[in-house]
């Protein structure tokens, strides 16, 4: 049997409430700085939602030329900006041959929501007779993938992945599968979301799951999730490809695991989450007691955080009391389909630098979430192996196992 194909991360980029690049996100996270603030929206006065984790000071015209910009919904703008950073860091320059061996796989929960919302307003509120001719190309779910592919001449297998809040992790897992299976040598993969439209916020309000103060995962006083936005994009390569070109390897994507609850459409199931974590460990060929850190799904809802705690205890048994678990959603918010990708920035940072970002906004412990959740302050800890959890509405779970660069 040949040694299995290993997959490494050689570039990363991020756009989040903590800034327009991965370094801003990481530095913000380890400083315990929350990107959650007062909601900025033209209709903010009418909304019950008063807070969100929004990308600050984002001027699209500063990043895209006037020919490209009309084609781009905000969700594609975020993805392209993050891809530019990731590809820049990787040092890859794509010619025709490499382009053909490069895949693009990007997750998003809702796609071009800003365009959808604007055009719906024109149609229904203003009774417009015609919609913008670029409506379809902006809002289609695969637009971020296609825009990245076009921008860099990437002509390998490329598609979008949707699994609500697990979209990023599923997308990265798919890219990993393409590399493992020999269908590509390089993959540009991650997730993007720009979901803070009037319609989407109203829809979330109706679910009565949004917090009105801030996001306090695992804390007794948690009151729900806080919506965020942004994108995280990574360059993945086979280890062989990365070594051949002498690339700087940031971390190894050591394994992936996925599962479906087949239960309630919203209420999470510990068994489903546990199966995804176990599958990721099995795929990585590691044991539960080798895990040092878990970046939790940790939404800050009553149900998720308690269920995730039970799932972690089920998988890790007594080791659950030794590993660190934190939810960085307390700082970058819940960016839905982009969340897993933003969290992968945190996980890569943790394995590279030996610093575990905290769970911010933490007040008192909840007996139902009795793990070491790294309250409020980052902690130095050698992290050789970490998991990144994502558990979506609809019961779709995806977990990434990340190890130090080989």
């Amino acid at each position, binding site marked *: 049997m040949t040694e299995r194909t290993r997959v490494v991360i050689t570039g990363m980029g991020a756009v989040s409430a903590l800034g327009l690049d991965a370094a801003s996100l990481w530095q913000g996270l380890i400083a315990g700085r929350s990107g959650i603030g007062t909601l900025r929206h033209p209709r903010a006065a009418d909304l*019950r939602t008063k807070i969100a984790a929004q990308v600050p000071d984002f001027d699209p015209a500063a990043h895209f030329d006037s020919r490209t910009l009309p084609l781009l919904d905000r969700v594609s703008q975020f993805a392209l900006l993050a891809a530019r950073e990731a590809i820049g860091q990787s040092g890859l320059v794509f010619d025709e041959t490499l382009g053909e061996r490069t895949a693009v796989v990007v997750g998003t929960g809702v796609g071009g929501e800003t365009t959808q919302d604007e055009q719906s307003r024109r149609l229904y509120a203003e009774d417009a007779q015609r919609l913008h001719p670029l409506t379809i190309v902006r809002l289609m779910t695969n637009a971020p993938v296609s825009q990245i592919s076009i921008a860099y001449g990437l002509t390998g297998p490329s598609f979008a992945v949707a699994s609500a809040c697990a979209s990023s992790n599923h997308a990265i897992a798919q890219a990993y599968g393409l590399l493992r299976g020999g269908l590509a040598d390089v993959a540009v993969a991650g997730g993007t979301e720009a979901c803070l439209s009037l319609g989407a916020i109203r829809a979330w309000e109706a*679910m*009565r799951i949004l917090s*009105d103060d801030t996001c306090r995962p695992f804390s007794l006083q948690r009151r729900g999730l806080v919506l965020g936005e942004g994108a995280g994009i990574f360059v993945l390569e086979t280890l062989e490809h990365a070594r051949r070109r002498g690339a700087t390897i940031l971390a190894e994507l050591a394994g992936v695991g996925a599962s479906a609850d087949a239960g*309630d*459409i*919203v*209420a999470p199931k510990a068994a489903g989450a546990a199966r995804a974590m176990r599958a990721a460990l099995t795929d990585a060929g590691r044991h539960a007691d080798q895990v040092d850190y878990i970046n939790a799904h940790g939404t800050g809802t*009553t*149900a998720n955080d308690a269920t995730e705690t039970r799932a972690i205890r089920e998988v890790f048994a007594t080791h659950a009391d030794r590993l660190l678990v934190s939810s960085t959603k307390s700082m970058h918010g819940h960016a839905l389909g982009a969340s897993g990708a933003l969290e992968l920035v945190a996980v890569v940072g943790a394995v590279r630098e030996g610093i575990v970002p905290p769970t911010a906004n933490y007040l008192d412990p909840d007996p139902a979430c009795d793990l070491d959740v790294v309250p409020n302050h980052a902690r130095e800890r050698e992290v050789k192996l970490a998991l990144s959890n994502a558990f979506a509405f609809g019961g779709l779970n995806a977990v990434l196992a990340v190890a130090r660069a080989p």
Partner: protein
Amino acid sequence: MGPAERDDMSQNVQDEVFDIIAAQAKVDRATLTPQTTLKDLGVTSLDAIEVIFDIEERFDVTLPDREANFDADTVGGLIDAVNEALAAKEQPAG
């Protein structure tokens, strides 16, 4: 309005809230009391937010926002919340 009218209105609120919950939880309306909890009725969190939506639509009120965790909430608590929201609506603006 006078106290008698207010009592009538409260009775109506209770009747209509019972109707909405019975329909959503698919239970016999006669089994409902103000002390019944949504959990007793086997109402899931998703059913519960639908109950609240139906109540808000019916009375044209907005119930206080909070995370959907209705295990301990009683039907009587919901009725009180509706009555409070209706009373708040009755206050003259300004």
